[in-house]
């Protein structure tokens, strides 16, 4: 799909716009989360909205849809996620704002035991059309308990779907798909993208869950990015191009289901693969892709598969340490050069 509309808006605004359009279209959609309006229950004091969501991602919704469809919650993630699952089982399409991805910890059971399994263990009787959107990632000095990435863990769980938009355009298309999807979908938003601007059509549109994109074609090696790291791959690609190397960039978009065909096809062409992920290295999406490729495209591989990830450590607070923690386009370029020097 090509973007014909050239209106530039922020990631944040694309999120609000998507929610607004879908809530207008479908009366069974409602949003629930901590401070998504804020100041709840104080209409008598002239306060209907305060925060409009952490980072303002739900700003203005309550004015349009009222407090029963834009529902502030107590700090009870397990309870309100379970409540959302119950509502999804009985005909609604709840959208949950999970403030930070770290908080999957306190509602993990509802995710893995109920949202993911109910349909299966009850023989396909039920569906759970639930969307969760959440913020993740380091780089903001929020330290170990507010910077974590758990999308690899979530992708491990059969029954869950997981997507990671990489810009305002993909956010809107994937969020609308997620809300319309009949399975639980987690839409993971890198904090570092929230102020990014990009071209976004103003009408509602969807991008299929389970399909990756190729924002840059090339033939010398494949760089796979996830969300923000796709931007890093594109940055690194510029440097590499100036050195005469032509990388292809795959923007994964969907982690579960995984569009392995797009990755495999690319590697069959380029014969080399570097996966860039801000998640920690063990048992994550990067290892997953490496494992699939060495299984299914072994004969096309000319070099080891490299992974650029965070180290196996929690996220540190101090700036120099956190800077070093993160993947960067420099690291991608360095690893790529090492890989090509094997020739």
């Amino acid at each position: 799909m090509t973007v014909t509309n050239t209106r530039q808006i922020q990631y944040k605004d694309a999120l609000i716009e998507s929610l607004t359009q879908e809530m207008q279209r479908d009366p069974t959609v409602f949003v629930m989360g901590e401070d998504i309006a804020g100041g709840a229950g104080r209409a008598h004091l002239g306060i209907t909205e305060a925060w409009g969501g952490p980072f303002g991602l739900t700003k203005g919704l309550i004015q349009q849809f009222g407090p029963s469809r834009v529902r502030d919650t107590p700090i009870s993630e397990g309870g309100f996620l379970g409540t959302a699952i119950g509502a999804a089982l009985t005909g609604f399409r709840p959208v949950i704002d999970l403030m930070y991805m770290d908080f999957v910890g306190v509602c993990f059971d509802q995710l893995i035991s109920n949202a993911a399994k109910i349909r299966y263990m009850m023989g396909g009787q039920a569906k759970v059309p639930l969307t969760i959107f959440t913020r993740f990632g380091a780089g903001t000095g929020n330290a170990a308990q507010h910077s974590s990435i758990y999308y690899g863990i979530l992708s491990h769980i059969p029954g869950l779907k997981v997507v990671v938009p990489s810009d305002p355009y993909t956010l809107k298309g994937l969020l609308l798909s997620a809300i319309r999807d009949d399975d639980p979908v987690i839409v993971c938003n890198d904090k570092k993208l929230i102020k990014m601007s990009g071209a976004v059509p103003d009408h509602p549109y969807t991008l299929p869950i389970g399909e990756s994109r190729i924002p840059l074609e090339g033939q010398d090696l494949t760089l796979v990015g996830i969300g923000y790291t796709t931007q890093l791959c594109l940055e690194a690609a510029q440097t590499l191009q100036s050195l005469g190397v032509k990388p292809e960039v795959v923007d994964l978009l969907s982690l579960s289901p995984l569009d392995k065909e797009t990755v495999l096809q690319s590697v069959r062409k380029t014969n080399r693969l570097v996966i860039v992920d801000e998640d920690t290295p063990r048992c994550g999406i990067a290892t997953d892709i490496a494992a699939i490729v060495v299984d299914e495209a072994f004969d096309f591989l000319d070099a080891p598969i490299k992974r650029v990830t965070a180290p196996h450590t929690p996220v540190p607070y101090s700036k120099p340490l956190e800077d070093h923690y993160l993947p960067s386009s420099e690291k991608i370029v360095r690893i790529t050069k090492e890989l090509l020097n094997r020739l």
Partner: protein
Amino acid sequence: MELSNQTILWLYKTMLTTRCFEERLIEEASKGKTRGSIHPSVGQEAVPAGVCAHLAMSDYISSTHRGHGHAIAKGVDVNEMMAEIFGKSTGICKGKGGSVHIADFSKGMLGTIGIVGAGVPLAVGAALSSTLRQNDSVSIAFFGDGAANQGILHESMNLASIWKLPVVFVCENNQYADATPVEYATSATNISDRAAGYNMPGWTIDGMNVLAVYDAAGVAIGRARAGQGPSLLECKTYRYYGHFFGDNPLTYRLKEEQEKYREQDPILQFENDMQLSYPKCFASRKRIREEVTTSIEKAIEFAYSSPYGPITDLYDDVYVNYAGLETL
């Protein structure tokens, strides 16, 4: 309160069906026809019956690992339940869930959930649906005394209360969670004492007496239906068997205690009540017993004669629009 004969017979038949279903199931389990854990609710039949007597198809319940009684009281077909526990493709969940995951969404039975406490918020969510739809259906969250100490219960009660949702939290306090007695594990004297902290009414009642359950549940459900919000109903009850089929309860409780409760058997008690107050119903008890026995024998036959599902079932139902294996 004077009850209609129809209600009396429904209560009787429902309790009896549960009892008979489980006693027969245990026989089959001891022959190795079932797998995993079977958690009999024998002794506790008064609670599901007394509560669900107030419910229509459009009302919802969520249930626990000890859920046969809830399913039966909510109208789930015993053939499909039995076949499910035999793992057959004709089971209500195609044999994929077994005893601890029986559900029937067509009947508002949102499922027995095996993680202790985890079914409770599902009922809260169903109640939220009713509120959003502005209809008058209510939801029941059944849970055990052990579940009372799970955080999710606390969160669910708070949510239901602040949003005034039409849900009744029904605690089946059978006084044990596995081998652990409630008085050890739970700091409250009565579990219903906790209701006050959520600004909702709480009652503790005799859960061996189906009429007591019926009356109290009527009040709680009536409140919910009328838009007056949630409440907590603790029913003191007792399971005659161990935690699961195969567990010997005499390792953690005394024979005398067991006998004391057996003397208060909910079905026998109710037969006495019928004899006194509903002689017409009492007169038909033999017929009902026979009907029930026949229906359960049929269920057993149905389960035996049904086939296992094809291996492809393994990959189905993971997602709505694609099977687990097509794309990883």
